[in-house]
């Protein structure tokens, strides 16, 4: 659009036509106060806080609804404006309880801030305030009417943003009130977006209410550890008996790929971290019972058993199962430990998507994977399979936002009428199980049509859809785990021919990282075959076993036959996930690293209590390939990181840990900054420079950044900007397969997690919040919630 020049407070500025005055002001650093204006949501003009003077207009104008015009002369600060703002606050406060000292929002309340700024604290109002009791609307949502300033942000974010439309406004005038969809309670997606967006303390969360005050928390920006979308979250922690307890999660600073979005899991299900079921001490099996022991004894026991098996049965008798939740550094370390220290390729993990087939289909093509950011801007999106609303809440949010704000064209192909069909320009309900066939069909196989057509989709419509897709030139293609092997190849070929970008949907917070870091029996990090000569073969200081190892199911079979003498399970619960008879492992020495006594841990011989992603540093890779940094937000007394456990086991076995973790180096001495004169709180410029260049001293083998050095150096596409990572940004990594790779992996081993919006694998079962939510909704929320109103009708000019 053409540009428009206007003058604001004497400053000349040029912005695109159609820009709202409030945004134009922001672009030049002028903050116009606002309550009801919220970028990305429909315009309201309701709070009247943003009133400014526009030359030639007799009345003050709302900057949030006025588009800029050529030659406009605007004043944002004058006595008249100040008085308008002050009186607006006085009016608001007339019916406001002013219970700031006990209000959850106290300290970060927009009303409080404005009152402070415009000095409306002295009240002229002396009559009774309207009162209503506080209500609990759902396991997570509480509402306190007197504090509500009716900015309608909650209604809009729930309706326009979430497409849930669970909040409404009832009555009129001073009786107007925000209302939940079921008269006295809510039935909704429990995302807490409404709470997060509320500028005051009217909507509060059950998780956080009255627990603490904002300034009493320590805030850490890290990454959600539930689904594979990688939402950035700021966790607020406060001291508790067991360590730093996380009490709040949000992304109010809108940093990261998710803006202010978090789903119920990211926002509230951090509570598994201080579940009463957390293991606090290592356990060993004595007389058939798991009893507490010391870390030293546990490591000794593990090391001696590993060594014993290695001498009597050889490395092939040991199996390792890695995790979808542990960090890239831990995953990398684990497979390196397996291959070098134990000498086995018997390593696998719970695969939730066919990443190897995807990597192989892309065949090293750069710029062919889409980041989560791309989903927000793509002109057209094709979604095959999966139900992102339940399984990839952020992805669903991105898609909805793109359709709403940028009119992206969405094609949904699914065997169920998933909720995202409501945003779709085209929804094709294909026959169950025909997602792969659909990929083949659009790639040109007409024969596949027979299996795809359904009572809801005619042959003609199917053909028309293919024709339409062929015309799309900037498509982002997103596919679920329904597509595997050759079907992925067909789809990728179709897309690459029209410069599409792809996203392959796996489940869990680091399933992509687990795959990229080589938790496979036949592939090294970067999907290179174990047998061929890769950089790892030349770089690593020990031999990589040349033959492929056993995959997860083969290991279980071997265990049953008594051939697998030891099994090392890190952050995984195969017994429950693969529905394995616990008896199958009775002949193996089982070591489990976990937070909880899971089904697998229960049958273990040694259990090591470990930290979760919120309690450690490292990096994770989202299903789109967006790498982000984990920072330690909370801690739990007694546990150690998986990283440390692996290193300790190796060390106790007498393995040279320098061969695993490139830490230290000649002459590295500890200088914590003192000699450079850095004071507490002051940025240590030396340290900043060193870490920016990956040169900061790695003082111990427990430092995951030492591992990251190697990952950056050796794993294809992981040579990403350290500075961006460190500053909390997401860095997209392509899915580049190591050269010389062949083979499609094993489609049959892919087992999707099938989580709903309210479940999160084993982890979710230990979240009190998710449990209460699940009690409430015995079945997942019915997606057939009808749109409340047409947001377009209230969009401004």
């Amino acid at each position, binding site marked *: 659009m053409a540009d428009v020049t206007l003058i604001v407070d004497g400053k000349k500025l040029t912005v695109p036509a159609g820009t709202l005055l409030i945004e134009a002001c922001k672009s030049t650093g002028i903050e116009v106060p606002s309550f009801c204006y919220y970028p990305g949501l429909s315009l*309201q003009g309701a709070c009247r806080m943003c009133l400014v003077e526009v030359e030639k207009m007799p*009345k*003050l104008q709302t900057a949030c*609804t006025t588009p800029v015009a050529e030659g406009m002369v605007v004043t944002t600060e004058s006595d008249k404006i100040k008085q308008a703002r002050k009186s607006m606050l006085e009016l608001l406060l*007339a019916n406001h309880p002013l219970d700031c000292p006990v209000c959850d929002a106290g300290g970060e309340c927009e009303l409080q801030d404005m009152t402070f700024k415009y000095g409306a604290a002295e009240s002229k109002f002396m009559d009774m305030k309207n009162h209503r009791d506080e209500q609990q609307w759902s396991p997570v949502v509480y509402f306190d009417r007197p504090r509500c300033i*009716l900015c309608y942000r909650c209604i809009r974010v729930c309706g326009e943003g979430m497409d849930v439309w669970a909040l409404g406004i009832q009555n*009129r*005038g*001073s009786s107007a009130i925000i209302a939940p969809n079921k008269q006295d309670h809510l039935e909704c997606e429990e995302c807490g977006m409404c709470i997060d967006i509320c500028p005051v303390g009217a909507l509060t969360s059950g998780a956080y209410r009255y627990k603490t005050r904002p300034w009493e928390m320590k805030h850490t920006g890290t990454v959600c550890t539930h689904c594979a979308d990688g939402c950035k979250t700021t966790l607020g922690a406060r001291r508790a008996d067991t360590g730093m307890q996380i009490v709040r999660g949000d992304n109010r600073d809108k940093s990261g790929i998710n803006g202010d979005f978090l789903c119920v899991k990211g926002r509230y299900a951090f509570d598994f971290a201080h579940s009463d079921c957390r293991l606090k001490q290592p356990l060993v099996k004595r007389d058939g019972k798991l009893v507490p022991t010391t870390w030293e004894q546990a490591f000794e026991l593990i090391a001696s058993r590993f060594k014993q098996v290695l001498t009597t049965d050889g490395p092939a008798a040991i199996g390792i199962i890695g995790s979808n939740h542990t960090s890239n550094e831990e995953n990398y370390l684990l497979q390196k430990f397996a291959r070098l220290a134990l000498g086995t390729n018997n390593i696998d993990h719970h695969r939730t998507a066919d990443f190897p087939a995807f990597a192989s289909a892309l065949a090293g093509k750069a710029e062919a994977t889409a980041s989560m950011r791309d989903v927000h801007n793509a002109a057209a999106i094709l979604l095959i399979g999966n139900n992102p609303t339940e399984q990839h809440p952020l992805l669903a949010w991105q898609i909805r936002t793109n359709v709403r704000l940028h009119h992206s064209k969405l094609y949904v192909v699914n065997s169920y009428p998933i909720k995202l069909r409501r945003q779709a320009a085209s929804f094709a309900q294909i026959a169950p199980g025909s997602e792969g066939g659909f990929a083949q069909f659009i790639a040109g196989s007409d024969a596949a049509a027979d299996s795809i057509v359904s009572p809801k989709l005619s042959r003609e419509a199917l053909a028309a859809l293919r024709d339409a897709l062929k015309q799309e030139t900037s498509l982002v293609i997103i596919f679920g785990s329904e597509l595997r092997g050759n079907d992925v190849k067909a789809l990728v070929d179709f897309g690459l021919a029209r410069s599409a970008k792809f996203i392959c949907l796996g489940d869990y917070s680091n399933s992509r990282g687990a795959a990229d870091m080589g938790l496979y029996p036949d592939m090294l990090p970067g999907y290179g075959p174990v047998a061929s000569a890769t950089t790892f073969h030349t770089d690593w200081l020990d031999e990589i076993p040349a033959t492929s190892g056993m995959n997860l199911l083969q290991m279980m079979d071997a265990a049953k036959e008594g051939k697998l003498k030891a099994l090392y399970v890190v952050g995984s619960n195969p017994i429950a996930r693969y529905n394995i008879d616990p008896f199958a492992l009775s002949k193996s020495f089982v070591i489990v690293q976990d937070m909880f006594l899971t089904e697998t841990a229960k049958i273990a011989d040694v259990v090591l209590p470990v930290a979760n992603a919120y309690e450690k540093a490292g990096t994770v890779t989202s299903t789109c390939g967006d790498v982000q940094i984990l920072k330690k937000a909370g801690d739990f007394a007694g546990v150690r990181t998986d990283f440390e456990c692996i290193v300790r086991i190796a060390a106790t076995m007498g393995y040279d840990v320098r061969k695993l973790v490139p830490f230290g180096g000649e002459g590295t001495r500890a200088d914590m900054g003192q000699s450079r004169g850095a004071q507490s709180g002051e940025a240590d410029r030396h340290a900043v420079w060193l870490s920016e260049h990956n040169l900061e001293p790695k003082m111990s083998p427990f430092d995951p950044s030492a591992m990251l050095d190697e990952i950056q150096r050796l794993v294809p596409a992981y040579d990403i900007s350290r500075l961006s990572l460190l500053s909390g940004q997401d860095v997209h990594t392509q899915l580049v397969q190591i050269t010389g790779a062949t083979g499609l992996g094993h489609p049959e081993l892919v087992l999707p997690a099938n989580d709903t919006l309210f479940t999160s694998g084993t982890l979710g079962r230990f979240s009190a919040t998710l449990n209460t939510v699940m009690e409430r909704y015995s079945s997942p929320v019915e997606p057939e919630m009808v749109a409340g109103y047409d947001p377009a009708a209230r969009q401004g000019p």
Partner: protein
Amino acid sequence: MAYLVSHPDEVKVVSRRFGLGAANLDRYLELDGYKAVQKAITMGPDAIITEMKASKLRGRGGAGFPTGMKRSFVPKQSPKPKYVLCNGDESEPGTCKDRLIFEHDPHSVIEGVMIASLAVGAKTGFIYIRGEYRYLVEIMERSVADAYARGFIGKNIFGSGIDLDIFVHSGAGAYEVGEESALMESLEGKRGVPRIRPPFPAVVGLWGGPTVINNAETLASVPHIILNGGEWFANLGTPRNGGTRLFCMSGELERPGVYELPMGYNLKKMIYDVSGGMIKGKSLKGVVPGGSSVQILTPDEIDVGMDFDQVLKAGSMLGSGGVVVIDDQMCIVRFALRVARFYQHESCGWCIPCREGTDWMKKTLVRFHSGGGVAKDIDNLKYLAENMLGRTFCPLGDAAAMPIISYIQKFRKEFEDHLDGKPCPYEKVHEAALV
């Protein structure tokens, strides 16, 4: 059924057929019915709008916007359908004129909607009538059905090749819905919350299509303008204020009622002459000349011609045509309280200044009127109203603030006389209660 009155000074245009049984279509046809629309068809859109402009007709809904000009804002080409919407929400306290038109001359409204549709190229017209006026909804529905039955509306009206539908739509109790953008929301089945403007309805209105919104009286004037010419209509009134207007005279008058008088007719004469003056034993304290939303005029301010410009100059507004005459036995504080209660009840609640301001105003006046007032209440009230003024999302906030400011400005002493728990010195129990 509303009662009719008459006075020799009346110039009957809109009320021409009142009392003549024109709700009956045959009777209406005898009284020149549906001639104007046929003429309008032959004139074509541009000529209709030219005639409307020449008539100096200004909106009778309250704001007095020139009707011809409003129509010229409607884009000629529009990808979305255009609409005409008759505003029959009539809820401004003191106003009861549209009611008479719907009751006595329903077809004139239909004809007005038709001509407006022809002028802007709309194919559908809606007549929105407040829910309380159920009997009028029924009359209008019957009249529309009669007109359909004769082929006056529907397909190919009067052989012109033009299709035109008209539907009657009932409200369900909300003053704010009379505000034009809230009216559209209500018609679309929503809460009566106004829309952000611009865009104005003439450009983006009902379901996104350009929409002409006019008051029922405005529309009922149109056929007469088409038949007799814009200039004729203009000459009935004063400069820039064409035609006549239905004035609803209420209060303790000898002959209250709805009179059709030329624009610019003297207010004092309206009270003392046309309406027979105050009932005996009472004298004049003030006049609210245009419905409860406008400023009060004191007895020495009422020698004024009742048109939009002159009343504005006198410090009030012509508004809706509801002339509320306040007698000396009415306490201004009590009156103010009733006005404040109204706006508090009718505020849609969308914006802060109106929602909170009307509530605050009402609470203060309730206390004040019952003897609990303190001196600073008076200034606080005025401060409050002044800070609502011009800052609300729609004009209802102004409508709530303006009268209160004027009461305090002009009758401050009456407020002061209420202080310190003194009983109201003005109020006399109405004789009705004595029985």
